[in-house]
């Protein structure tokens, strides 16, 4: 027999049992589509988090007060209140390191923003003039906080996209006056949106005022955070070393924590990666169940078609012909189920796009297709061997 004859034979016999073939494939279809869908959600989350972090500035380093354990984030809150960081640290660090390009202190408080009787609550940050360079923010209209604003403690505010939209809608807020917790500020600029999605904290939901103004308004004496930036990724490690060197001269290592985006990002993506693989693994179990379903049906089919097998052997089929016929039937079943499952999974992931940025990954498609073929072979072998080894005399007598 040539290459295509066994495939044609298998297709013909699958066609004669359409409903059964479809039901058999169902296990594989469900397994494959859930692998594709769950993995696409997992990697979508990973992509999402990564872009979010990158939009905040990949080469940014934060010095936070107190000891912050990344695995125990809830401890961060208390240490903020008793910050031992000092404004002077900023200059010390800048002079103690050659790789830091920009550095500035920051404080933040919950502020009540009022404009024409409308009040919203927004995190209000007091920042140094280079904060926007460090965190990659740009003004959509007006201007950002400048050196003179900080030096002269001007009562000016730059609104993030969200509070600007909440208070002013589409109108340009630049030049308008708003009250922040009872003090009148001039709106100097509006920042371009970074477009955070449905999840996580919104980077656009902030109002920024000069650092010196914030100290006075919210009665802070110490910075709650020092933000700095290095020129490129390779400078992060030496920068951290320099920071520790400078800071440890004055403070204990429990009094401050150096955080950097990549470290945080790695922790989160690692975690999400584990979840993605775990989800894929759970879905893969259903693939296994689907494979067992195929074996079950193929064994039934061999028994049911015993006489057919006997006849085929009587008219000249070799054991090998019979083996291939049944094996190819099993592979076609699982591969077709795999292809349908991939399509359904991809469609489902497309449908989820509006909620979360899913991404159908090539490896999950390859894995699902490969896995379903392998399952077809593994679970198809036993029934096919059984069929091929039937004695034609016995098989022809079978009732």
């Amino acid at each position, binding site marked *: 027999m040539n290459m295509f004859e066994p495939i044609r034979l298998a297709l*013909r016999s699958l066609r*004669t049992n359409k409903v059964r073939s479809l039901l058999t494939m169902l296990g594989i279809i469900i397994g494959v589509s859930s692998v594709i869908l769950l993995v696409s959600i997992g990697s979508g989350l990973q992509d999402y988090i990564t872009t979010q972090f990158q939009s905040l500035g990949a080469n940014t380093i934060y010095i936070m007060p107190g000891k912050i354990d990344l695995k125990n984030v809830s401890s961060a809150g208390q240490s903020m209140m008793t910050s031992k960081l000092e404004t002077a640290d900023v200059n010390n660090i800048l002079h103690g390191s050659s790789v830091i390009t920009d550095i500035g202190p920051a404080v933040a408080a919950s502020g009540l923003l009022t404009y024409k009787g409308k009040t919203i609550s927004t995190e209000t940050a007091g920042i140094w003039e280079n904060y926007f360079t460090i965190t990659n923010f740009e003004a959509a209209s007006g201007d950002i906080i400048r050196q003179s604003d900080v030096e002269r403690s001007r009562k000016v505010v730059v609104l993030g996209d969200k509070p600007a939209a909440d208070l002013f809608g589409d109108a340009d807020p630049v030049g308008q006056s708003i009250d922040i917790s009872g003090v009148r500020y001039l709106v100097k600029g509006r920042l371009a949106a970074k477009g955070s999605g449905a999840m996580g904290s919104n980077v656009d939901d902030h109002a920024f005022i000069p650092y010196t103004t914030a100290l006075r308004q919210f009665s802070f004496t110490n910075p709650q955070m020092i933000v700095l930036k290095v020129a490129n990724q390779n400078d992060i490690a030496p920068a951290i070393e320099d920071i520790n060197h400078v800071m440890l001269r004055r403070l204990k290592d429990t009094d401050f924590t150096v955080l950097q985006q990549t470290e945080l990002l790695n922790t989160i993506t690692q975690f999400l990666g584990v979840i993605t693989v775990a989800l894929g693994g759970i879905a893969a179990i259903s693939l296994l169940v689907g494979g067992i379903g195929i074996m079950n049906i193929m064994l039934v089919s061999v028994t049911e078609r015993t*006489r057919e097998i006997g006849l085929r052997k*009587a*008219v*000249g*089929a070799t054991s090998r012909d019979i083996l291939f016929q049944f094996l190819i039937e099993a592979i076609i079943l699982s591969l077709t189920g795999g292809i349908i499952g991939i399509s359904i999974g991809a469609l489902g992931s497309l449908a989820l796009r509006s909620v979360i940025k899913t991404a159908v990954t090539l490896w999950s498609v390859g894995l699902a297709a490969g896995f379903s073929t392998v399952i077809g072979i593994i679970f198809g072998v036993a029934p096919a061997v059984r069929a091929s080894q039937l004695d034609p*005399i016995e098989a*022809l007598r079978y009732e």
Partner: protein
Amino acid sequence: MTDILRLAGVSREYKMDGVTFQALRDVSLTIKQGEFIAIMGPSGSGKSTLMHLIGCLDRPSSGKIFIEGKDIIGANDRELAEIRNTHIGFVFQQFNLLRKTSALANVELPLIYAKIASRARRERAIEMLKEVGLAEKMSNFPSQLSGGQQQRVAIARALITNPSIILADEPTGNLDSKSGKDIMDIFENLHAHGRTIVLVTHDENVAKHAKRIIRIADGEIMNDKGKMKL
């Protein structure tokens, strides 16, 4: 006339639960080109075993079998399958047609294993169905055909590889007398055209169509009437 098939001192024993059962003992038999033979015997006589040996579905425990001069004892499973494909045309009591498969596709089946291309298969299958008078039923499924028609499809299938021997096992056993007679007429006609036919039956009325009757009992040939003379 040439020898189509020759059995020389053939025995076949089965072992079941340690007990040896002698189904055939020391049977020698020659079938010549164009013979129409009936093998008769009560159940358990060994006639089925003999048929399986003639049909190359089984191997003897001892003795030799030659088909057109070729010794089949040393043949492996694949070679045996090829011999069945090219030399033997089976017709069964139960017809053994593939269900949900058209008459045409059923007739084509042996040619698939003979590695014949699909167009040539189709042409020859149509020809064979014409020969048994079922050309207009070629796309029907077996379930849409009468018993007699199904057996004619099975005969067309047996003929399609142009085999050395047509081996029919109780071909009229599942048919009413009218259809049975039609089938026997076909065999008569095939015999008239020089086909070699071996019928296995216990029905005297069927056997009387044959020119030579071999009677078997207890695994041995009791009687062999009408053997062709050289």
